[in-house]
């Protein structure tokens, strides 16, 4: 289950508005569909002069039509606004945004929750690497040496402590032996990702986020880890035969 305040705040707000719109629409629909029933069309005597081969009288009301153009528009502007605020958490550029700069040796991200948007703010982040290939994920906590397709990651100059980031394997029922990524709660990670063959996308189910892993370019994904737990990483961009069992475990510990 997703443990992201950001997600649930937005979701709850959207559900509320959906209920409002839904109740309005369905209430209206049920009222009209029962109130105006007639068995042979006798209720009103052809007010629009409907006749075959004649374009019938217009049935319109400019004020109403404008009203239900403007009102939904205001609603979506509002929804865009509330969706806009947490966008920073999703895409802020690597340096100086709400996740600060890359951590110094021994520095902790000290994640905390921004009460307005529900987004996680941190002091600094750790770069890790996720690589996808048919049909295995692989994780690398210290991607300094990486020179994939001539694109070298900046050398951080130190190795991450194993309690901040560690990789291993885990046997998951139904999936077999799968790679395992252990991260620490309270730390924020920036995953730099690339694929060795076709497009993949890791679905970090714990925090409800994902991003495509492409063979031709590097993509990045923020992983602000806040809650302790065990969860799965699945592949969510179709990649062939064993796509559905291309998975990994994710441990978040204290």
């Amino acid at each position, binding site marked *: 289950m997703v443990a992201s305040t950001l997600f649930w705040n937005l979701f709850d707000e959207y559900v509320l508005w959906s209920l409002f719109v839904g109740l309005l629409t369905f209430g209206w629909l049920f009222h009209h569909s029962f109130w105006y029933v007639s068995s042979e069309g006798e209720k009103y005597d052809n007010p629009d002069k409907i006749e075959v081969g004649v374009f019938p009288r217009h*049935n319109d009301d400019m004020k109403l039509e404008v009203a239900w153009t403007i009102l939904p528009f205001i609603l979506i502007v509002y929804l865009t606004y509330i969706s806009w605020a947490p966008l920073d958490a999703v895409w802020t550029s690597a340096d100086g945004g709400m996740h600060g700069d890359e951590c110094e040796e021994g520095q902790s991200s000290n994640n905390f929750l921004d009460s307005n948007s529900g987004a996680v703010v941190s002091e600094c982040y750790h770069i890790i690497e996720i690589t996808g290939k048919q049909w295995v994920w692989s994780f690398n906590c210290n991607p300094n040496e990486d020179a994939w397709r001539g694109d070298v990651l900046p050398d951080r100059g130190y190795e991450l402590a194993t309690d901040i980031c560690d990789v291993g394997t885990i046997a998951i029922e139904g999936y077999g032996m799968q790679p395992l990524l252990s991260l620490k709660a309270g730390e924020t990670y920036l995953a730099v990702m690339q694929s060795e063959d076709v497009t993949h996308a890791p679905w970090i189910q714990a925090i409800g986020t994902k991003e495509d892993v492409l063979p031709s370019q590097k993509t990045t994904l923020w992983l602000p880890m806040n809650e302790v737990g065990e969860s799965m990483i699945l592949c969510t961009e179709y990649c062939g035969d064993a796509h559905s069992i291309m998975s990994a475990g994710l441990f978040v510990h204290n």
Partner: protein
Amino acid sequence: MMKNFIHSRSLVVMTILIAAMVCTPLVSSFPTGISGVKDSGCNCHGATTSDSVTPMIVGLPEVYNYSEVYELTVSFTGGPSTPGNINLGGFHLWASEGELSVVDATVQQYNPNEVGHTEVGNDQTSWTVVWTAPATDRNVEMILHTNSVNGNAGDGAGSSGDEWNKITKKINAPILVLESANPYVVLSTLIIISGILLIITITYIFYRTNPDSFNWESFEPWIADWLTTTDHKKIGTLYFLAGMFFLGIGGIMALMIRIQLSVPGNDFLTQDQYNQFFTLHGTTMIFLAAMPLINGFANWMVPLQIGAPDLALPRINAMSFWLQPVAALLIFTGVFSGTGADTGWTGYAPYIVSETAHVGTTMWVAGQIMLVASSTLTGVNFLTTIAVMRAPGMGWMQMPLFTWSILVANLMLFLSIPAFGVGLVQVYLDRVIGTAFYDAASGGDPLLWSHLFWYFGHPEVYVVIVPAFGVISEVIATSARRTVFGYRSMVYAMAGIGVVSFIVYGHHMFTSGMSPTLRFVTMLTTMLVAVPTGIKIFNWLKTMHKGSLIYRTHTLWALGFLITFTLGGISGMFFPSMAMDLHFHESYFVVAHFHYVLVGGTVFGFFSAIYYWFPKMTGRMLDERLGVLHFLTAFISYNGLFWPMHRLGIWGMARRHHTYFISTEEAMGSLPAEAAGWNMFISISAFLFFFSNFILIANMIKSVIRGQKAPADPWGGWSFEWMTSSPPPTPSFPLDDLPTLRDANEGHIANEPSAIVRWFQGLMVLDDNEEEAGH
């Protein structure tokens, strides 16, 4: 006689050609070598088996005991393997049930049910493994591959000269278990049975038309007429039949998918089969079911509604239709041999151009190229027809809304589908002659395909929903005995959807690493879609106000459409919000959303259209009681089928996964325990929904045989189609006596051209008048 002879000869030739296309295994599409996860292991040693190698498994029982552990000795004899070679051989063993495990370093484990030799184990011809029998009654199958190696790998010759073979062993459960059917066989059989049923139905209809001349002499010109027809009504009927046929085929595939997903960890379908089934389910439903159904009604109704004798280019229209069945054959060729396309209907690059995608993918692409050609020709036809062939008195703003919807849909399709066509041609050329448009190793960009695809793909989903809007506008207005509320805002809303459709496609690529600015722009434009859609929904509701609502089956479907489409529209609003989309992308929430829109929208809309226009098309009324029964069963089971999927998506069920596992105390999985029950519920609803639609089929057959004769205007509509007899004559309106549309709006000025139109008209008509003066 001579003419008949030519007709029958050409029929025979064509049948042979079609048969040849299906049967000839030209595309090396028959599975020869080893492929797929369960079979992979030693496919590096050549593609064909060799009889000189004899694999053996010793230690297997005929009938296993529950959970008993068996020690198996796997070995082989024969082949080039001789003592003293550098390497002797290798093996790969797969068990459908139970667990295999390793006892020494010569064997390694790939999966709980899959083992193979290790580097160390390369030097022997016999290995020992342990198999734990399952705890329940299952029929077990083991597949063993062995390689006999000639040991020249060290000389740089690799695996050349090596030989391999495979055996399959069956172990029975203590209690006899029925063999489960091969899903390919099931699907192929069902397709063939459906085809035969279709042929029988056609033959029967021919018999009914004239029972006295039920013989080849009269059948042959009758069927030849259908094959060569350019009459828009007959082509409409052909489209309709093709659409219904493929709706059934797509439905069968959906059922197989649902059987597979009904319980966690199911193995009714292999991954491989599942991947092909969801790919073809999507392609079939969108391109071979929804589009032909829409085209069927558009062909039938657009010329009738605008008072035209036929479409602008009747022969081109026939061409549009006939490209489709041939394209369908190409799309399905892979399935008949077990190597259908397995790319998803989106066919994302670079997987689609990778050799791991099945060979059938090439044919799938080829078939879609033909569908693109077909849609382009259809677009030319409808745009031209609607633009220039309206009857006198019918200005743009007096066109029936269904015609408007077809105009908007075809305009969208027409401007977007060339991008898809170009992308498909690029993929076809990549796969066939070896160009490198999407080859990442040579610098090809996979996102280019995504852009070309979604530039088409998003307008495409509106192309299938907008005609349903048109149908609902007609049905609700007619049922309520009112003009549709706000005709003009309906038109502008539809046009608005058409315009917006081209600038929102980026939301399909939110997770592809696109630029933050574009993400924001796309988020806003996507939200904007709700405005014109909202206008339409409110207008439909207001149409009923102060009306006299007469309930017929088509009314029920239209009201049902309002409910399901509104729900689908609301759930669609969750996606543009980036922070939620990152979770929902490729989850079951998406599956729920687009089925609410495509089934609850398009299919329900066209069910409504069937009940509304069937009397016009056949001259026979449908049975109202069967219709209501169809609506109730289908509507309820439909909601049971798709509503729970929203919840599954939020929980974390991923789309395009052949199975899922639930989390328990002991084991990690991606879904909570309740998910299993809901999946079973969904699968049961799926069956109910599928079979409830047979009521419609029965209703139609019953109506054609002994339905009441339909009057010209059974529901009280105003547009021209209700002016003609049921069924209408050919040509639909006599050329020298086209109808004229009158207008009930006194002093209404919509018909008067605006300044721009007058200017434009001046340009065009003046020129033409001069020309005529010159003659």
